[in-house]
């Protein structure tokens, strides 16, 4: 019998509203984030509603352009039916701030991973920051059922 362990690679997504708000706070937007029960229209750099495929772009969580950078458009996060949040960031804003979205994904992911480990009952949960910007969230889980490998 061969026993094979695997790595898991994950493309981070925004699924947790509280983690998203915490991540935005860490990025300096404390008190600058609108949270709506229903989606609201995003406004572009020119003061007009942002339009995508003939419809106004709407989102429940919004950072208005005056809190962003020069000539920015509103950034919004719209909740989808599957529980994820789609980030509406214009092409221009992605060009002038190319790492903004991935930094947000990382900050959100760190919060979610910490919460995961706490929910699993892990002890000694800690963050290790590496030179390349990676953050490792680690902890130890005690359980008679702890299993970590595929058996094939």
């Amino acid at each position, binding site marked *: 019998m061969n026993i094979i362990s695997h790595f898991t690679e994950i493309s981070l997504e925004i699924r947790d509203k509280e983690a998203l708000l915490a991540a935005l706070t860490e990025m300096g937007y404390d008190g600058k984030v609108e949270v709506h029960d229903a989606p609201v229209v995003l406004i572009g750099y020119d003061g007009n509603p942002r339009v995508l495929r003939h419809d106004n772009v709407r989102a429940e969580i919004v950072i208005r352009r005056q809190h962003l950078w020069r000539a920015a458009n509103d950034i919004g996060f719209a909740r989808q039916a599957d529980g994820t949040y789609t980030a509406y960031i214009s092409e221009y804003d992605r060009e002038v701030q190319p790492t903004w979205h991935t930094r947000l994904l990382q900050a959100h992911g760190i919060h979610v991973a910490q919460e995961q480990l706490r929910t699993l009952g892990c002890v000694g949960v800690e963050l290790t920051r590496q030179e390349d910007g990676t953050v490792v969230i680690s902890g130890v889980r005690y359980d008679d059922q702890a299993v*970590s490998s595929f058996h094939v």
Partner: protein
Amino acid sequence: MSNPAGRAERIAIAVRPDGCAVAVYSDTVPFETLGRVTAMPRASLVEWDGSAREWIARDARTNEIVAHGRSREAVLRDEHDHYVDALLRGSLSSL
């Protein structure tokens, strides 16, 4: 660290600044709460070595022995810990 209640499982999740994460697979962790699982590359192969009369865990990429011993359970635990340590050292954050 003592563990009177049972076995210990070390868990580590490396969250990268490029919007991706890497972890050693565990049934325990609901990775889908972090995002979309895009790959499950093989980490190692654990086999019984008849000549050495022990279990040997070899890295799937380098074929390096990462753990070995008479107890399969102990080898699996050591192999898992090897990769968790590698994640913590930063040598595995990019696969």
